[in-house]
Each structure stands twice: as structure tokens, then as C-alpha cells.
């Protein structure tokens, strides 16, 4: 009798996973249909955050390349000046 009761309780357990529920990996990303996300509405605009992130990366990388190029040119000019002095011109 107690075995049957336990079996009934297990069958009625609300915490038990539904048969058709999709398996979810808590440690990974789960993809979803884009139209569903759009319907939810957003309090924090994600597009601005993504734009800000990519914009910062672009400005930082381009700025760095320009900075190294400028330093290289300045050194090249200084070397040319010194070379002229060395040549006695």
C-alpha cells in the first residue's frame, strides 16, 4: 500500500520535467527565434550597447594603428635629420 502511495506521489510530482520540454544546457547558449525576442520588449536597448561595444573596439584599434604609425614617422624624420648631420650637410 505504501509502495503504491509513493508511486502516486512520484507521478504527481510537479517538479518532475515535462515529457516534451526542450533539454536546456545551463552552461551553454540556447538559440531562439528572433521574432519571439522582438515581441518581448526591452527596457535597456541592446542595440545601443552592442553598437557602443563595437564602436569602442573600432575607435581603439584604429587609434592605436594611427598612433604607432605617427611614432614611426616621427622616428624616421629624426633619423633622417641625424643622418644629414652625420653626413655633414
Amino acid at each position: 500500500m505504501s509502495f503504491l502511495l509513493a508511486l502516486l506521489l512520484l507521478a504527481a510530482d510537479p517538479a518532475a520535467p515535462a515529457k516534451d520540454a526542450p533539454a536546456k544546457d545551463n552552461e551553454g547558449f540556447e538559440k531562439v527565434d528572433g521574432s519571439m525576442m522582438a515581441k518581448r520588449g526591452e527596457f535597456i536597448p541592446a542595440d545601443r550597447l552592442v553598437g557602443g561595444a563595437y564602436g569602442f573596439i573600432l575607435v581603439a584599434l584604429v587609434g592605436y594603428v594611427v598612433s604607432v604609425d605617427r611614432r614611426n614617422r616621427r622616428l624616421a624624420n629624426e633619423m633622417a635629420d641625424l643622418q644629414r648631420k652625420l653626413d655633414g650637410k
Partner: protein
Amino acid sequence: MPRAIRLSLAVIAAALLGSAPLLILAAPLESSMGFVQKIFYFHVPLAFMTFAAVFVAAFGAVWWLWKRDPRADRLLVAGIEIAVLFGACVLVTGPLWARKAWGVYWQWDVRLTTTLLLWLVCLASLFVRRYGGPAARSLTAGLAIFGAADVPLIYLSVSIWRTIHPKTTVVKTLGPDMMLPFAWCAFGFLALFLVLLELRMSLEKARAQLDELALAVEDHLEDA
């Protein structure tokens, strides 16, 4: 700037600025975070390259402390400067992602705190190198090694401690439609890292040549 480097930069810019955004936009949205998860495709490869830059700098540091080879010093300086650049990108893009995903820009989480610590160590190395006087090279080398010791801690922090940051296993679980833009960006940033390393090392080489030339001019003027 040498022509080969200019050409390489143009190809990488086309790959990262032309193709990558299209692949990233075409990738599916993530269920819990939505559009903001797109930051992942640049944020994670930049973090990997920050670690690579710190390891390159640490290799140069050990080489410098052991052999006092000027090439080691070039590698050290180039690695540290690129680590500061890429690290800044990681530390800016991460909080922008967190604002949406966690509701706050910053948490004093182990992963975030140790990453900030690494960036500050790299920044300190650059300042020491610039203003540290005669012992600057060795002090910079010491700091670079200290920074490299922090990298495994950053990587493993999400597995050891309970943190809010996604785990390293996220990359392994990516589906093919998310993996393609991620791999594209990862290879793009690897190529960018190598080209920037070469560019920055050539600058240090030119600086050493300038110093030699300045000494030669001094000698020449004294003789005259």
C-alpha cells in the same frame, strides 16, 4: 609603415569590419540575453588575444632577464602594449554586455576583478617602462611575469568559484551557426594581434637604431 604590414592590416580590416558583422548579424539570437549576446563574438576573442599578448610579453621578459637580448625587450614592450589595448576593449565591452544581461555594468566578481588586476599590472608595466629610469627594462619584465601568473587564475576562476560570469564551457557548446562567426572573429583577431606585434616591434627596432645613430652623431661632432 612597411607595405606588407599595411596590406595585412587592410585584409584583416576587411575580414573583421566587412565580413564579421554580416556573420554576427546572421547568427541566431540567444534565448535569455537576446541581441546583446552579439558582443560575445568580439569580446571573447579579444580576451583570448589579451592572454596571448601577456604570454608573449612574459616570454620576452624571461628571455630579457636571462640573456639581456634587445629582441626580447622588443617582444616584451610590444606584448604589454597590445595587452593594454586589447584588455581595454575587453573591459569596456564586458560591462556593456553585463548592463543588459545582469542589470549592472560591473560586479566585483572573481573573473572581472582578476581581469581588471591584469590590465592594471600591464598598464603599470608601461608606466614603469616609460618613467622607470635605468632599471625600467628589468622592472617591466618582472611586472610582465607577474601579470602572466594572473592569466591562469582568470581562466580558471569561473570553474573554481561560484561566479556570475559565463563559464569557459560556453564556447564548446556553441552550435555551428554561432561557432562560424566566433571562429571567424577569433582568427581575425589572432591575425590582427600578430600584425600589431610586428608593427610595434619594428617601432622599437627603429628607436634602437635612432639611439645608435644619435651616439654616432655625438662621436662625429666630438671628433670634428
